[in-house]
Structures are given as structure tokens and as C-alpha cells.
């Protein structure tokens, strides 16, 4: 072993394609499952959340307007870069979740495969969920699924990478943009994921990742008028109902999945459907 001093990594937020510290200047210590210090993470604030929403809104027209083929390639590229960082993720997942390295590797592998699964959906959603409507009249009517907009995601608290990937990928596959609050106590794999996203052709602002206290930041996202949907998966039980009440103020779509969701099994389409609108277009037929 070399006695070289390693270059310690600074873990920051990921907003609009950049890596800022929290505007609040706060950070909090992150430990492994046994309580040993791992790193300091930025403790995101209300202002960081609002900046992230603005970045996500700004990125929405471009990302939702990109071709499904293009989104599929970008997402597949993410999987390629994830694969290249497999060992780093395994180390962080093992430390964060307190599992053996071999188990962590298996979780990372499933997470990468999950990402590939969703990458392949981008150009199939419209065919599977859209329709041509046989209306009773001389009109052509068709319905297409469209992204709902900016989605605030409260990532699972336990599953630091597989769970995280399982909640982000379905949001952006269909063209939404995301503001993600990471697992509060296990944020390191999420920050490394943000580095992957930054280096794999995902436009800045499509995914924004904030570390910090979920219960502190989530209410600002639940009531934010420019957030269209809210994923409660990682919400602390004590504030779930309050978040839903806040979300009602702007008629947000709310995904009420619980943290007990089993991320190891191949999902169905429900997480994709949760963030889709159906648009029905009519036109007369005639000569």
C-alpha cells in the first residue's frame, strides 16, 4: 500500500448542470451505517430548492421537446457511464447501507439494469399508452401521452442507489424534469450519480439533486406553484398528509408510493404513467 494521501471528495448539490454549495452555507456530516464519518454533504435550503425548480422549468422545453430516440440515447449513455463507475458506487452503497460489498455490487448492477430498462421505454410510451380514437363523427382524433412538467421527487431513504434510480428514471424517460431530494442519511451515491448525469449528455437542469433534511425542504416543493407533480416515496410518515394538503393548493399530481416499495423487482408502468398527461387532438376529415 502506498502511503499517499488521497484526494478527498467534496460533495455538493447539483442544480442546473452545475455543482454549487448550498446557498445557506450549511453542510452536515454523513456517516456510514456504523456511525463512522464519511464526508460532509451540503445541507440544501428552501432557496436551493427554488433554484432547482427554476432550473428544472428552464430545462423542460428542451428535454420534453427532444425526440424520444434522443432521450433514449442520452439515458442509455447514463447507463454506460454508471457501468464505468460500478466499483465506486458499490463502495458507497456498501458504506451507506451497511451491506457487504458483494451485495452492494449486486444492488449496483440491478440499478444499472433498471436504468437501461427505463432508457428503452422513451420511444415506446406513446405507442403503448397513446391511442387513435374511433369517434362517432367525421374527425380524426388521437391521444398522446405528454410529460406533466417539473416533478419533485423525495427519494427513498433506505435504498440509496437502486431506489434512487428507480424513482428518477421514470420521471425523465417521458420528458419531465426533476428536482430530487436525496436520502437524508445516505446521500453519497446520489451525489456520485449527479456526476454521472453531468458527464453523460443529460442537459443541465433535467435532473437537479439536493442533499439535506427531507422534512425541511419538501414542504417548499409541495407548495411551489411551478412544480407539477410530487413523489412522496421518501417522505417521512409524519409529514406525508401535510405535503399532500400543500400539493392540493396547485392541484399537483401526487404519487403516494411508500418507502416499503420493493425496488428489486422489475417495475410496471405505474411510475411512468404517474407523470404523464394525456392530450387528445381532434381534426375534421373532409375534402
Amino acid at each position, binding site marked *: 500500500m502506498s502511503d499517499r494521501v488521497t484526494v478527498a471528495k467534496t460533495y455538493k448539490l447539483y442544480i442546473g448542470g452545475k455543482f454549487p454549495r448550498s446557498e445557506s452555507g450549511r453542510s452536515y456530516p454523513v456517516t456510514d451505517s456504523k456511525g463512522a464519518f464519511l464526508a460532509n454533504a451540503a445541507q440544501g435550503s428552501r432557496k436551493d430548492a427554488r433554484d432547482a425548480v427554476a432550473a428544472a422549468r428552464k430545462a423542460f422545453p428542451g428535454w420534453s421537446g427532444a425526440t424520444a430516440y434522443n432521450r433514449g440515447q442520452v439515458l442509455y449513455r447514463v447507463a454506460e457511464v454508471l457501468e464505468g463507475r460500478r466499483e465506486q458506487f458499490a463502495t458507497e452503497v456498501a458504506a451507506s447501507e451497511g451491506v457487504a460489498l458483494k451485495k452492494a455490487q449486486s444492488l449496483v448492477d440491478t440499478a444499472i439494469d433498471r436504468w437501461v430498462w427505463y432508457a428503452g421505454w422513451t420511444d415506446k410510451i406513446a405507442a403503448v*399508452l397513446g*391511442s387513435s380514437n374511433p369517434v362517432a363523427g367525421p374527425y380524426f382524433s388521437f*391521444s398522446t401521452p405528454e410529460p406533466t412538467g417539473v416533478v419533485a421527487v423525495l427519494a427513498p431513504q433506505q435504498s440509496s442507489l437502486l431506489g434512487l434510480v428507480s424513482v428518477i428514471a421514470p420521471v425523465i424517460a417521458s420528458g419531465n424534469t426533476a428536482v430530487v431530494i436525496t436520502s437524508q442519511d445516505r446521500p453519497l451515491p446520489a451525489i456520485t450519480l449527479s456526476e454521472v448525469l453531468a458527464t453523460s449528455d443529460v442537459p443541465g437542469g433535467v435532473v437537479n439533486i439536493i442533499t439535506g433534511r427531507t422534512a425541511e425542504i419538501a414542504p417548499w416543493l409541495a407548495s411551489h406553484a411551478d412544480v407539477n407533480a410530487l413523489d412522496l416515496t421518501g417522505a417521512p410518515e409524519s409529514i406525508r398528509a401535510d405535503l399532500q394538503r400543500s400539493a392540493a393548493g396547485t*392541484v399537483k399530481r401526487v404519487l403516494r408510493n411508500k418507502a416499503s416499495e420493493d425496488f428489486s423487482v422489475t417495475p410496471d408502468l405505474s411510475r411512468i404513467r404517474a407523470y404523464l398527461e394525456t392530450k*387528445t*387532438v381532434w381534426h375534421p376529415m373532409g375534402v
Partner: protein
Amino acid sequence: MWEYAPAPESRDIANLRPNYRMFVDGQFVEGSGEPLKTVNPATEEVLAEVSTASQSDVDTAVKAARRAYDRVWSKMPGSERAKYIYRIARQIQERGRELAVLETLDNGKPIKESRDVDVPTAASHFFYHAGWADKLDHAGYGPDPKPLGVAGQVIPWNFPLLMAAWKIAPALACGNTVVLKPAETTPLTALVLADIIAQCDLPPGVVNIIPGAGDVGAALVGHEDVNKVAFTGSTDVGKIIQGQLAGTDKKLTLELGGKAANIVFDDAPLDQAVEGIVNGIFFNQGHVCCAGSRLLVQESIADELLEKLHARVSTLRVGDPLDKNTDVGAINSREQLAKIKELTESGEAEGAQRWTSSCPLPDKGFFFAPTVFSNVSQAMRIAREEIFGPVLSVLTFRTPEEAVAKANNTPYGLSAGIWTEKGSRILWMAQRMRAGVVWSNTFNRFDPTAPFGGYQESGFGREGGRTGLEAYLDV
């Protein structure tokens, strides 16, 4: 100008009775709430006295629906459910004329609309959904998708029978049982629908209809044994319901208000566009959540279009809803008329230019002459708030990009209209509209096969089509 002799439909066809009772567990029973008097808005005469539900009646109805769900409806094969729903569709057709006249009496809408739109579309919703009942395996939600249980449904007064059909048909097809609350001012056709359902021999409790005001609706959606809530109505009430359901496991769909942009480009066939604009805002007195209430006209044709529009709107006949010549009927209630007046006054006060048709109005009843505001700016209340009446606000734009920005500049997102002869522009615009329904070179078309519902604060969930089934399945 043509002169028309009155051609009134006979009100006797409605089989109007002095008293109507609520429908619970297969029986017509007195409710223990304070009875309401429903009024013909075209004459202000009382049509009938209708019993209403109390809190305990709500509980009784939900219990009946639960029993019917547990013992009968959830166990019945879809192929058998289907035949009941087909029966309802057929009976609506058979009693179509009665329903149309009754709807016009109770709601105030012109007979030609209740006859040609409301009733046939209600029948078609049941007919369409009947066929789904034994085909849910093929609906794209995985094998054997399960119903949710008891659905509590609250509907508005603008399309009383049609909204009942939109709610009940998919709920039954998917295997749920129903407690439905019709609107306070328009309970009658829903109770005739209950009579139809009884004649179709639906098992008791599968459909329950409980008239009443907002407190009955609140009790229904808040009932702990209701699994699914579906609401059509104002965005304000929708937000209250969504908040009320916070922390529960109830599945919710909302179909709320709108402030749709109807966008006319300079190459549009103007005469057709004028017809579409008129249909978009004056259909059903403008009591339509997806009404084309904001007209966006390309600047170069604004004067010409406005002139044609004024000329066309001047010919609209406002008056007796039972007259087959009538184009615009009565405003549904005194309260709604007051709201329309208040908002139009704000339009004048804020500096928009008001034009109102000089058509004669009846001496009695709640009527409002078709009105068009020009020189409207986006900040004015008449450009932002849902008026829900025969009032059109006209704004202009220069470029397609500006049209998109103005059309989407609203918290709503229910519908939009596009008028242009250029196909590529239609598709470009349609893609950019943040709205659930986009009518291009037409407006206000509805069909049970075509999903309908809003973006943003116009609600969530869809009604109609394969997509609409999701609202009533545990998926």
C-alpha cells in the same frame, strides 16, 4: 334576416312530477335532509321538490354501495356487468326525448343541445363502457385489474345527465359501485336515470343517487368507506377536496375549470372559424369548463374577424330553451348570473371594450345577452378568471410563438382551439398547448372513445377511452 315562428317542444314530455326522492339501495326513499326546490331558470318557477340526503343518509348510501360491491357486483363476471350497462344505454335512448325536455327545464339549456348532445352522448358513454366490462384484461393495466370499491362522485350543473353518465359508466364497467351526488340546482335527470337503472334491474345498491348541496358532497367524499372520489366542478372546490383527502388511501380524479385559448391564424377560413368561435363560447350559455373563452386572433385579421363575429353573434336567438330555434338558453341560476355580471363589469372597469348583442331577452328568468370584449389584456380578470357564461374575451398576437405563450399563460389547462389551414402549423401548435384537449379547426367535440381531462389546475385523470379506465382500477 329570417323571422322564426316559435317551435316549442312540449314540456309534458318531461313527465315532470311534483316530488322526486333520492335513490338508495334500489329504492326511492325520502332523504332526511331539508328538501330542495329545483327551479326552471328560464321562468323562475319551481319545477319540483326534491328530497336531499343528510349525513346519515350519506352513510346509508355508502353502506348500500359497499354491500352491493362485496356481495354482488365485484363477484359478477364482467360479461354479466356489461349487459346491465348496455341495458342502461338502451333505455336512455328509448327515453331520450323525456330526458332532453326534463334537462332543458331543469338546466335552462336549449332543447336542441340537450336533444342532440347531452342525451345521445350520455347513452353512448354507457354503450362504450359496457363493452369494456369483460375486456379489462386487454386495457393495458396487466392481467385481471381490480376495481377500487365504492366510488363517491360529485357532479356539476352544466351537463347534469351527461356528467352522471361520464361518472357512472366507467365506474360500473370496472366493477365499482357508486354513490353519486348531482348538483343542487339540477337533480332531476339524475333521478330519472335512477329510475332507468331500477328498470334495468341493476342489483340494489350498485348505483345510489343522493341529491343535496355542497355539504352532502363533502360528507360523501370524506366518508371513510369510500375508496374512490371523482369530482367535476370548480377548481376552488377541487382543491378543497384534494386537501380533504390528504393522508387517505382514496384514489382521486378531478375535472376542474378552464380558460381555454381559441387561436385563429390569418390563413384560417374565417367563416368556419367564426362558427367555431361561436360554438366554443356560446354552446350551453358558456357553462362549459372547456369553453373557448379567450379568443386569440392574429393581429392582421383581428378587425375583419371581429366584424364577422359581431354579425354572427347578433343572429343568435336567446330565449325559451324549449323552443327548437333557440341558440342560447337560460343561465342556470341567479347566483351564476350575478357572477357573470360582476365579471363583465370588471372587464369594463379595467378598460376592455364591451360589445353585447342587441337580441331581445325574455322578461322573466335568468338570461344574459352574448357579449364580446375586445382590447383585452392578459392582466384583466376577464382574461384570467373562468366566467362560465356567454362572454368572450378577445386578445391579439403577431407570431405563433406569441400565441403559444399567451395560450399557456394560465394556471388552467383543459382545452385549446387552433384555426389555420396549414397542417404543419396545427401539429406544431397542438404539441405546444399545455391542455388536455386540442380542437383544431373544430371545437367542443366529445366522444366516449376520446380521453378528456386537464393539465395543471384543470385537474388530473382522464374520462373516456382506454386511458379513462385507470381512474376506476386499482392500478
